């Protein structure tokens, strides 16, 4: 049984002190209280003699857990704005602080006298309890200066000075400046002639740095010694508590930073009937936590992480929109948004360029796999039934209908090498699972009937243009798997039945389904787990994750005012909308392109709704 309570209080105060001078203070106070308990009741079994006995391991036990988290943040800033002829200045300065405290208390009791009551007080057995306390805080100063000349030339300068309690005193603070400029070209004199066509054009650019605490845990600058309650060596019939040695810390660990450069162009054509906005950005994350250069073993422990890694994300965004009217009553609009970004590692302190970790040049989400062109056939085996080359690293046994992995490094064996760039064995980079060319298309149209209201229809599509996926471990895709001690199976009709069958397959299978040598899926296996040998990441089963989904369709009828006036109603709208109506994708129908990882989720639901909106 779990209960969560949360209370948020937000208070804000805005003041206009004198003309041009404003001030703002806001504060938030949040309290969250979680209360869980788990009561385990004993389970009895009936013996053949009729007697009932307790199944060992199911003695009654009770676990309780409470956590109180309090959080507050306070922010205050003041701004002054002044205009002298065509020059406008604005300056703002502010301060911010926040603090979070968590207190947890948990306890367990074994063997309750009254197993139905969730009360530790009724425990006959051992009672233990433990707690956890933590706190963090940040504070910062920020300032901004804006200047514009005649709304034509725009300049903004920002600075932040942030400090975090997670770092040591000397590395706690970071200064993060940024600047942006803009030029409204369409307000210039030389633009006047083009104005009827391109009624608005603005070019802007920005460059700045911000800080990021990353995944840092708390107290990284204070060596801590973990406590064990029971040493492994019994002394005089008790096990004493003991304390472990702390590791080495990097006292200079500090904020991770990211510096973004962005340039954008905004255009409006034909009186803003066509508008477009394009941005290109380059974001360099630096001082990211990465490994230190390994030290000789005599150090006796690992060298602590250092802020020494970097990666870069490049991308662009485009938005376009066209509004127009066909006739006085009939208007429509088309909107398109398109974006793309890729990230790669530029600096990482390692001598082993393993593709499971980071290495300089690694593209995030790259996929390494084997090349598979076809299944094994009888000609691949020698007279004794042994495969003509060595795939034993993956599995000992192979048969016709299993996949044939290509030996790219020519050594007669299929191996993953040492998993590094220098020695990839027979693996190579086969794709990348970053979603590319994310798009959204918005179509809307509306028709006003004279004296009979108005109908509006809008349709919104969204999707991804390019993506490579490999369904490792996704049993919805492969049709069956053993997961540890449990067997997970899912067999659907249709695509799953397209598996390899030849004349040596089980006769009953052949009777029902016939031979299928050119199948999509390889030879099937029962729950031995041996089938996993065919599911190594490879080119054959690399799927495209591109999709387009009809996200929203909405049809609205607005009643005409003359009808409503009589009923003293101001507005009335009737609408019908549908969400997630269909998806076009190359993936099987039972795998949603947005939740590809193991498919263990309820499919996205199509929602149909109707409603009436009345305003008085």
């Amino acid at each position, binding site marked *: 049984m779990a209960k969560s309570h949360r209370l948020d209080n937000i208070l804000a105060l805005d*003041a206009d*002190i004198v003309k041009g001078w404003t*001030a703002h*203070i806001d504060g938030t106070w949040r309290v969250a209280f979680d209360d869980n308990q788990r009561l385990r009741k004993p389970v009895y079994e009936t013996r053949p003699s009729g007697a009932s006995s307790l199944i060992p391991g199911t003695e009654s036990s009770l676990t309780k857990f409470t956590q109180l988290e309090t959080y507050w943040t*306070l922010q*205050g800033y*003041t701004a002054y704005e002044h205009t002298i002829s065509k020059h406008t200045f604005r300056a703002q*300065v502010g301060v911010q*602080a926040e*603090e979070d405290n968590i207190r947890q208390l948990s306890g367990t009791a074994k063997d309750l006298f009254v197993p139905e009551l969730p009360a530790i007080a009724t425990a006959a057995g051992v009672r233990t309890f433990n*707690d956890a*306390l*933590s*706190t963090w*805080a940040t*504070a910062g*100063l920020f300032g901004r200066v804006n200047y514009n000349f005649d709304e034509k030339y725009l300049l903004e300068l920002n600075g932040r000075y942030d*400090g*975090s*309690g*997670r770092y040591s*005193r000397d590395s*706690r603070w970071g200064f993060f400046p940024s600047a942006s400029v803009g030029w409204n070209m369409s307000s210039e004199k030389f633009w006047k002639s083009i104005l009827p066509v391109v009624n608005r054009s603005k070019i802007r650019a920005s460059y700045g740095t911000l800080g990021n605490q990353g995944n840092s845990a*708390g*107290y990284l600058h*204070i*060596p*801590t*010694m*973990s*406590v*064990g309650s*029971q*040493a*492994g*060596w*019994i*002394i*005089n*019939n*008790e*096990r*004493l*508590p*003991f*304390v*472990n*040695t*702390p590791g*080495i810390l990097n006292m200079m660990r500090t904020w991770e930073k990211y510096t973004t450069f962005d340039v954008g162009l905004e255009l409006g054509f034909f009186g803003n009937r066509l508008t477009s906005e394009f941005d290109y950005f380059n974001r360099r994350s630096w001082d990211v936590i990465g490994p*230190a250069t*390994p*030290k*000789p*073993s*005599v*150090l*006796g*422990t690992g*060298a602590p992480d250092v802020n020494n890694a970097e990666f870069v994300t490049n991308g662009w965004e485009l938005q376009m929109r066209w509004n127009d009217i066909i006739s006085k009553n009939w208007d429509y609009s088309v909107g398109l948004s398109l974006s793309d970004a890729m990230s790669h590692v530029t600096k990482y302190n390692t001598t082993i360029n393993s593709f499971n970790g980071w290495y300089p040049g690694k593209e995030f989400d790259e996929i390494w796999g084997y090349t598979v062109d076809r299944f094994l056939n009888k000609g691949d085996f020698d007279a004794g039934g042994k495969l003509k080359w060595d795939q034993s690293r993956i599995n000992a046994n192979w048969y016709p209908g299993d996949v044939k992995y290509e030996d790219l490094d020519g050594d007669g064996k299929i191996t993953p090498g040492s998993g590094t760039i220098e020695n990839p064995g027979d693996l190579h980079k086969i794709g990348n699972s970053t979603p590319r060319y994310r798009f959204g298309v918005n179509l809307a149209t509306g028709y006003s009937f004279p004296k009979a209201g108005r109908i509006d229809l809008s349709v919104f599509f969204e999707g991804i243009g390019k993506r490579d996926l490999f369904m490792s471990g996704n049993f919805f895709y492969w049709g069956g798997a053993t997961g540890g001690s449990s067997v997970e199976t899912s067999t659907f009709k249709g695509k799953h039945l397209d598996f390899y069958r030849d004349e040596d397959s089980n006769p009953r299978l052949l009777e029902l389904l016939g031979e299928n040598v050119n199948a999509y899926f390889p030879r099937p296996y029962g729950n031995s787990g041996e089938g996993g040998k065919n599911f190594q990441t490879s080119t054959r089963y690399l799927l495209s994750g591109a999709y387009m989904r009809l996200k929203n369709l909405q049809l609205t009828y607005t009643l005409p005012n003359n009808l409503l006036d009589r009923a003293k109603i101001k507005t009335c709208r009737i609408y019908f909308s549908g969400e997630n109506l269909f998806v076009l994708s190359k993936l099987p129908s039972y795998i949603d392109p947005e939740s590809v990882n193991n498919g263990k989720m309820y499919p996205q639901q199509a929602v149909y709704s109707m409603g009436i909106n009345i305003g008085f």
Partner: protein
Amino acid sequence: MKNKSIKKIISCSIISGVAFSIIFSLSACKKFLDREPLDQVSEPKFWKTAKQLDAYIVGKYDWLPGQLSADGMGYYVADQTSDNMVNGTSYSRYMNGENTTTPSSGGGWDWSAIRQINMFFDNYQRCETPFQTYQQTYGEACFLKAYRYHDLVMRFGDVPWYTSVISDNDEVALQRPRDPRALVVDSIMALIDKSIVNLKSRSEVGVNRINKETALIYKSRVALFEATWAKYHAGKSSASSVDANKYFQKVIDAYNQFKTECGGFQGKLYTADGVNKSYYNLFGKFDYADVPEVTLSKKYSQALGVLNNVGYIVWLYGYSSCSYSQSLVQSYLSKNGTSINILDPTVVTTKGAASLTQMADLLDPRFKQSVFIPGDLLNNNTPPFKDALFKVPQMNMSDVSRNAVTGFSPKKAHNPDSKMINQTDPLVAGIAFRLPELMLNYVEAYVELNGGFPDLSDNIDLLRQRVGMPTLTSVKPTVDAWWPDYGYPVSDNLAIVRQERRVELAGEGYRVNDWKRWRAHKLFDGKRPKGFKYDEADFANVTPKPVVNLDADGYVDPYKVFMSGGVYKFNPDRDYLSPIPMDDLLRNKNLKQNPNWDSPK
């Protein structure tokens, strides 16, 4: 007018309020962002009380010997890497010189324990109570550092000596070359001496805490190891710079100090169960608090969650696939203290299980108390094993790990009172140090230095009396031709002492360091270990039949197939020392590799 002034007052107070809060927060910022852990021990606040120092050291007790793993026989099967014991599942790759590559990391070059114990020495003086309150803890820390450091010296030879924790940017310390062995051993010995001075005696702290008696036994162990290594490896690639005679003397000093400060040796050995049972019962005890012969022991208790499964594995599950070799059994003297050759068919006329009974009757009583003999009670409490007796060695299990492949099933740590249920109380306790080692170390050191025997009445004779055998003083055995060949000539007295040591400490994990320090690879090199004389009639009514390989004379030859008819081929110029891993040689150019192992190009 009024409105304007009220407005002005309000606006002025808001201005000052905002300004004040900005200024206030700036000055409070420094303290505000000082966050310390609230539920963890932070190192700056530690090292203040004696209890904290003790808690730090207690966690290091799992470095000590005498451990029986949760599901194995622990140190009782360490002798499998020697000529004492045979592991039925495979031969020792190490003894066969098969470990030929320098690893890139690991291989025992692990300095985390040294860092942990050095942190104690760097910080213990911050304690706010007087030295007497933590004197015992200080002694324990000295012992633990010596123990771990000597472990490194035994494996690698010369190692760099560090007295305090190295910081990650101390390049001088990180690039330190290997210090000469003599210097490191002298420093280790100084630590042991400090621990002897500061540790309390066993009667004060009990058998589960490191005590003065244990430190004295350990002193004799280290001194004897270093002295014999220096003597027998002289002039070889594994030579040591230690002064052998100086260290033989230290062994003698430790023995004498025990006599004067710890009450001597008389009455200390466990004899309470009589000459036929005391030696056997000693090893299977559940608790050693009342057994002064054992100075340090690891207690096991299912109730407290420290588990082992010795009671189950010691006979039913094949002693972790290990059994005693023919070579070890050949070392037992006759029960009259004279030399006897069990391979002589006129001496041992039977074969199979009957030969075990015959040998039990002919040999040193320690034989029948170390090896299962037909008629031994296996268990007295758990059905269906209650009252079962040992009949024949377990050699026919299809799971090879359950077989005593040589026919000599070890009995040490067996106790018929154990429950035949996995890891259930009462659990056999582990022996970390026992007094006979100090006695034997002393006699060996004395003979090495002086040639003749010392007064044996306080040592070997006591061991003989415990089992009802004539004393060495009264009967001196002749050193015959079939006695072990160490690869070089040894005096008769030394051969007798080494033999006595082998028998008393058989199967307790001492043999490996013994053959290494004596440079005695000849004991197994060029041979295969053998077992007893097999009699298929023993298994006439048993199915399945054992799969046994025999040699030409009918003795069990367990490695005949594993070694394809070959013999052990040890590489003495290389394998007495372990290699320093490649990664460390690359990171510290001042470290030189041990002879005949690969280095970076």
